[in-house]
């Protein structure tokens, strides 16, 4: 366990050294957030229909997407990919460590640092933006705490998805497809593209049963108050069940892959 914590700590330190890289995306995300906010304003101004959330809630949701964007499993660990492509994964296999767990702790650090370096500043800016454009603070203290807990679970869930993506590159062709398709599914079914509440009513049970809603939609609903803090336990349970299931799939894929892996020398 200590070894994995050290990996996490080391990767954390390395990323803090390369601050500029970790904070990249800051201005783009502010820009995208602003466009999203203005699009929502225009849509709300053109319809009187009752919507699943208020304009302010939709704006807060849109900003939260930008704050936590780089925490999402939208790509696999670039260094792990390089290891696999160059064949250096052989050294990894020799280490007296569980490969899955060491990659898992690496990816955790890889997801946390960008949120601290670029997400937190975006959050501060979005909160102080002039009225109408900016986001609100959590509905209540309870909402804030539930958001924090739920977001932590989302981090664990996301790392399990990232690992599946990395492991799949051990199969060249299928891996390439996975690199493209999984992030698309993540973006769409998590609520990143459009908050899930806007999706057609018939699709709601399906969307909330899928693992992806636990990445974005569930924590955000606690923040904007459309889910009361009392709903935390069942939602947390679902997030953690999916995390366990996806870790299981990742472990199985990895053991299958390492049995058939052929290193090209070099």
């Amino acid at each position: 366990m200590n070894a994995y914590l050290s990996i996490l700590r080391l990767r954390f330190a390395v990323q803090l050294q390369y601050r500029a890289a970790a904070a990249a995306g800051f201005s783009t995300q502010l820009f995208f957030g602003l466009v999203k906010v203005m699009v929502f304003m225009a849509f709300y101004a053109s319809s009187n229909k009752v919507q699943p959330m208020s304009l302010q809630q939709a704006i807060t949701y849109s900003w939260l997407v930008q704050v936590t964007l780089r925490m999402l499993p939208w790509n696999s660990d670039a260094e792990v990919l390089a290891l696999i492509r160059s064949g250096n994964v052989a050294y990894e296999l020799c280490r007296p460590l569980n490969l899955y767990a060491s990659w898992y702790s690496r990816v955790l650090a890889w997801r946390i640092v960008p949120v601290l370096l670029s997400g937190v500043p975006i959050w501060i800016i979005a909160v102080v933006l002039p009225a109408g454009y900016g986001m609100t603070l959590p509905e209540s203290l309870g909402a804030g705490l539930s958001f924090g807990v739920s977001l932590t679970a989302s981090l664990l869930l996301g790392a399990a998805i990232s690992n599946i993506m990395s492991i799949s590159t051990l199969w060249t062709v299928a891996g390439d497809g996975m690199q493209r398709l999984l992030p698309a599914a993540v973006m769409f079914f998590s609520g990143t593209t459009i908050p899930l509440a806007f999706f057609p009513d018939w699709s709601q049970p399906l969307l909330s049963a899928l693992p992806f809603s636990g990445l974005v939609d569930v924590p955000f609903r606690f923040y904007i108050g459309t889910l009361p803090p009392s709903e935390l336990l069942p939602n947390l349970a679902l997030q953690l069940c999916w995390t366990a299931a996806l870790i299981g799939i990742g472990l199985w894929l990895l053991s299958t892959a390492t049995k058939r892996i052929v290193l090209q020398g070099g």
Partner: protein
Amino acid sequence: MDPIRLYLEYIGTSLRQQLQYRASFIMMTIGYFLVCVIEFFGIWVLFSRFGSLQGWTIAEVALFYGMINSAFAISLSIGRGFDSFALQVRGGDFDRTLLRPRTTFLQVLGHDFQLLRVGRLMQGIVVLSWGLSNLAIAWTMAKVALLVLAVLGGVLLFTGLLVIQATMCFWSTQSLEVMNCLTDGGVETSQWPIPIYNQWFVNIFIFAIPLACVNYFPVIAILGRGDVLHSPPWLRWVSPIAGVLFLALSLVFWRFGVRHYRSTGS
């Protein structure tokens, strides 16, 4: 060898290289296509909730969306050398470019031709065709020409942006992330009818980065709609020229940059 033949030769090499891993390529292209399709589905979700966007229908938005995305996809394919120019500067590869008896612009343009964007282009065309088939447009030769010219103008404009982004690398040796706001952000912005935004924001995309000239103005001429921005009607028919002007200006900047190039020495 004349420049055009040389450029086609460059592209040929690039294509042959990318088609070496055929199965991977097909998988990536399909993946890329699906990613983009999902993106448009998000717009459908919003329309299904709100009905209309300040008087615009989803078919009209599909026209904006399809045109700008097709233009961007083509531009990314041909301008890949400029998009990845930071690597050439950092690696010192640009020194070699300078030694050859050809213009730097042609060589960097021919550096890489990315076939992968075919997926995005396909999606742009599919969305565009869907939009057109759902709109009752009184077609004339002039309108067809305007549509094609607007997309071409968009290609030139985005290529101009990529050239500017590359030129900055002469001073910063890395790709300035702010430029993403203008390329990716520009696409995101102009896939919606531009009057839905606030006036100050609209002005940026008319006067500074004239994306509205290759998208919004030609589209309202094709649709035969009045302009809420009160532009003179003749402007809508000639506005794609802005793409040519923008590329020309960016090439002036490029030449200025090349003269100030200092090799990294590596």
